[in-house]
């Protein structure tokens, strides 16, 4: 058959194997025919792809010409000289026939020596095939040493790095992208070098077929599977759509990639005594479920997953904690038994809890990827299958939707480990950080639903999935917000004038609270960073940070604003209850945004109780303790409550205080009971409540409370200094004081006392402590007006002294 006939036949039969064989046979016959005119004493062999008899339509034809060794023997020298001229004629002749020849000329001795200096030649020799000439020369070539496997592993890793180690490129290179045909060859080479081949080769038919078409369509050795080619080839092979073709492609590639990575790791694991010492050390991590052998995790018992599917979740947490890879055997067992896990997962009602827990562990990203690769993540959330290997074409995205999602989560989780980065600081300070990966997991899941804007669809899909997994109402409201608003900051950044206060106000209104702003900023950061490796330019980072700062400032300013009539109109609770409306009058919009209708009703009830005694309190326990105090506002109130809590050795995590127009203060505190005082002594709960009430009524003095406070050793320092500033522009009637310092037990109580002792009244408080930092916002006034500048400066000085890290 001629090249043209081979091509025509392929377009009819689409039989890639037949095509490769036919072209190899054609080239074989041409080379052998031309070689017959060569003088004796040399040989010609096919190597590389040609050696494997896999000649794609426009692949190079790799030839090895073997000459006898020039070891000084006269006869050998003569033979070498004699062949030079005819050889160059032969090669020119083959070029003229339109064959792209890539030749090398060596003696067998050279072939056997050079594996250290030229790994690529040694690798190509693995596929050598005799064509014509002196067979004895060909037989002198020995198989490369098994150590060549290490070079192959290194070269493969370097190649994978060029493609960010992912198979899920929207426009992959079918040869070089991880999981492509090159990896298929790596598998075969490593098998030849003794890395046993316990499994049959994965199904690669679709890759071969696609590459044949790519070559024929381009008319050259072009292996880029671009969008245009995806369209053309989908039609040629009768796929339902280009997306369907790509899913087939990614499935094949995923299998190859998994096998290749596993085989490479095994090769790299050989040798190195330092490494084995390290391995011995970590093997002590073994527990009753898992043993750690040679750096990989193994199940302790056979049929572990079948007998106890919950072990998969424990494996997930184990990986998140220690960051170790699964042994190949573990991956196989997991894959085989994943159906058992899926059945089990269907019956569970709280799988989100272990996932959220693991998200705060050091290797959370690796653990989540592990869960995805064995398809357990999809077992828990079958909804995620909608975005598996999903191609959504746009100019910027480089990965499929599922890969984009995982990269975004990985980037977000790794952000916490970075130093000297403003977004990293934000990540460390953010409350509910573990909900960020949860929101990211679902943020684009709606992209699998055609003909609808994806954001509302993502929310719609996420809701039942997460409720089934046991998400709390509060957590869902945050995740829902994050998914629904995940494009807000990007679109404000790129399309709106950030110097326009109206723009910032409207973003602030959509975001609602500083806590949500932090999470949304991080989500936006992660989402952009996962579009392609270069997407998060310093330019975009700067715009995003600027937007964050401006909206943060706006939300802080807003703390002295009052709930407006449009908010009242928007709330059915307020519409129906004049009491609630009266209670809320004078409170800032933040109050509405952070409290559920149920909590507002509780506050209203406390308000009624407080009428008689001047104060009412309630205490509830969720993840932390929450204390609500409703009392007639008076100077020093907030400081006294903080002191009462501190006097029990309890650590205040968050606090806020607002007051309404009727002179009622609503103070809420979240605190941790690190010594478990309240847990272990139920009487102490009543004691605490009584102490708070007595403190508010003035029956206890500040000194009495502070004397009772237990001494606690401060944590290691994370901040070197306290930063305290004031701002008289933020509000018409009060002075804004912002404070950032190292947190310590009793800090809030000390700060509040300093403010009260200065004679200033605390109007609004917003206190947050995360990652051992205290981030406090106070609005203070004196006689219903702002502090004069000298007064404010004096107060800042006093606060700096008390807040300095110890």
């Amino acid at each position, binding site marked *: 058959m001629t090249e043209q006939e081979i091509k025509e036949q392929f377009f009819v039969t689409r039989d890639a194997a037949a095509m490769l064989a036919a072209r190899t046979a054609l080239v074989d016959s041409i080379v052998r025919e031309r070689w017959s005119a060569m003088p004796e004493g040399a040989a010609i062999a096919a190597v590389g792809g040609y050696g494997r008899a896999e000649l794609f339509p426009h692949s190079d034809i790799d030839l090895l010409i073997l000459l006898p060794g020039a070891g000084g023997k006269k006869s050998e020298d003569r033979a070498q000289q004699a062949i030079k001229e005819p050889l160059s004629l032969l090669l020119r002749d083959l070029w003229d026939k339109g064959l792209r020849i890539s030749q090398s000329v060596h003696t067998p001795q050279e072939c056997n020596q050079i594996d250290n200096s030229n790994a690529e030649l040694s690798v190509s020799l693995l596929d050598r095939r005799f064509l014509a000439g002196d067979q004895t020369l060909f037989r002198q070539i020995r198989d490369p040493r098994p150590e060549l496997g290490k070079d192959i592993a290194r070269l493969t890793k370097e190649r994978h790095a060029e493609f960010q180690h992912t198979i899920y490129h929207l426009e992959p290179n079918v040869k070089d992208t991880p999981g492509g045909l090159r990896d298929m060859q790596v598998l075969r080479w490593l098998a030849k070098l003794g890395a046993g081949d316990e499994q049959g080769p994965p199904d690669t038919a679709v890759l071969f077929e696609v590459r044949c078409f790519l070559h024929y369509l381009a008319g050259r050795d072009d292996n880029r599977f671009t969008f245009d080619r995806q369209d053309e080839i989908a039609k040629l092979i009768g796929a339902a759509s280009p997306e369907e073709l790509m899913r087939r492609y990614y499935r094949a590639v995923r299998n190859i990639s998994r096998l290749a990575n596993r085989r490479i790791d095994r090769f790299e694991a050989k040798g190195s005594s330092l490494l084995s010492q390290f391995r011995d050390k970590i093997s002590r991590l073994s527990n009753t479920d898992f043993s750690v052998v040679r750096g990989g995790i193994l199940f302790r018992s056979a049929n572990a997953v079948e007998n106890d599917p919950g072990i998969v979740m424990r494996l997930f947490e184990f990986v998140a904690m220690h960051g170790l890879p699964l042994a190949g055997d573990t991956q196989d067992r997991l894959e085989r038994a994943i159906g058992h896990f899926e059945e089990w997962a269907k019956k569970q009602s709280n799988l989100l809890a272990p996932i959220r827990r693991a998200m705060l562990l050091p290797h959370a990203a690796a653990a989540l990827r592990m869960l995805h690769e064995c398809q357990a993540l999809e077992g828990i959330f079958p909804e995620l299958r909608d975005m598996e290997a999903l191609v959504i074409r746009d100019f910027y995205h480089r990965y499929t939707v599922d890969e984009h999602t995982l990269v975004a989560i990985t980037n977000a989780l790794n952000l916490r480990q970075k130093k000297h980065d403003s977004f990293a600081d934000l990540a460390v300070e953010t409350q509910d950080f573990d909900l960020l990966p949860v929101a990211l997991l679902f943020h684009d899941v709606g992209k699998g639903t055609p003909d609808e804007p994806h954001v509302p669809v993502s929310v719609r899909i996420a809701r039942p999935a997460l409720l089934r997994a046991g998400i709390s109402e509060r957590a869902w409201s945050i995740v829902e917000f994050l998914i629904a608003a995940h494009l807000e900051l990007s679109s404000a*950044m*790129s399309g709106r*004038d950030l110097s326009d206060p109206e723009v910032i106000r409207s973003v602030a209104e959509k975001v609602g609270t500083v806590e949500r702003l932090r999470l949304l900023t991080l989500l936006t950061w992660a989402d952009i960073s996962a579009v392609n490796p270069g997407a998060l330019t310093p330019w*975009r980072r*700067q715009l995003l940070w600027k937007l964050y*700062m401006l909206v943060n400032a706006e939300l802080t300013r807003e703390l002295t604003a009052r709930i407006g009539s449009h908010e009242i109109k928007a709330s059915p609770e307020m519409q129906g209850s004049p009491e609630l409306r009266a209670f809320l009058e004078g409170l800032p919009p933040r109050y509405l945004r952070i409290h559920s209708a149920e909590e507002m009703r509780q506050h209203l009830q406390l308000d009624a109780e407080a009428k008689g005694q001047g104060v009412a309190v309630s205490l509830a326990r969720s993840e932390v303790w929450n204390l609500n105090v409703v009392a007639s506002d008076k100077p020093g109130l907030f400081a006294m409550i903080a002191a009462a809590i501190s006097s029990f050795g309890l650590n205040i995590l968050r606090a806020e205080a607002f007051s309404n127009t009727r002179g009622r203060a609503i103070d809420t505190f979240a605190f941790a009971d690190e010594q478990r005082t309240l847990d272990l002594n139920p009487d102490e709960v009543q004691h605490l409540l009584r102490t708070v009430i007595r403190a508010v009524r003035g029956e206890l003095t500040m000194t009495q409370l502070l004397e009772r406070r237990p001494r606690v050793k401060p944590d290691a320092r994370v901040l070197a200094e306290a930063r*305290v500033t004031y701002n008289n522009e933020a509000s018409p009637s009060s002075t804004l004081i912002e404070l950032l310092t190292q947190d310590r037990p009793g800090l809030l109580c000390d700060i509040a006392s300093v403010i009260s002792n200065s004679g200033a009244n605390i109007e609004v408080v917003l206190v947050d402590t995360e990652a051992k930092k205290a981030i406090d916002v106070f609005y203070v006034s004196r006689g219903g007006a702002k502090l004069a500048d000298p007064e404010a400066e004096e107060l800042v000085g006093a606060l700096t002294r008390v807040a300095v890290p110890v």
Partner: protein
Amino acid sequence: MKKIEAIVQPFKLEEVKEALKNIGIDGMTISEVRGHGRQKGHKEVYRGQEYNVDLLPKVRFDLVVPDTRLDEVVEALTNAARTGKIGDGKIFVYDVADAVRIRNGDRGDAAV
């Protein structure tokens, strides 16, 4: 031929692109740049710390047009990029000696 280099506010990107498209200008190069003019950057205060933001994000358009279209293009650019506030940016116009289309060797106006 003239080369036009316009530095505009980032949020004006789409509007300017659209305005150029509407008068039939399709060829342009757009880059994300950072810099400052008389606006000179400013200070932002965040948690009591001043951030010096001296290089501000801007978008740069580069395009080459025949002499006869210069005024029209500059006007479209100006109108689309203007907010009337400091920091709206600048437009620079240069003389271009020649242009070559690499694919077929076209020169001058035919190449732009």
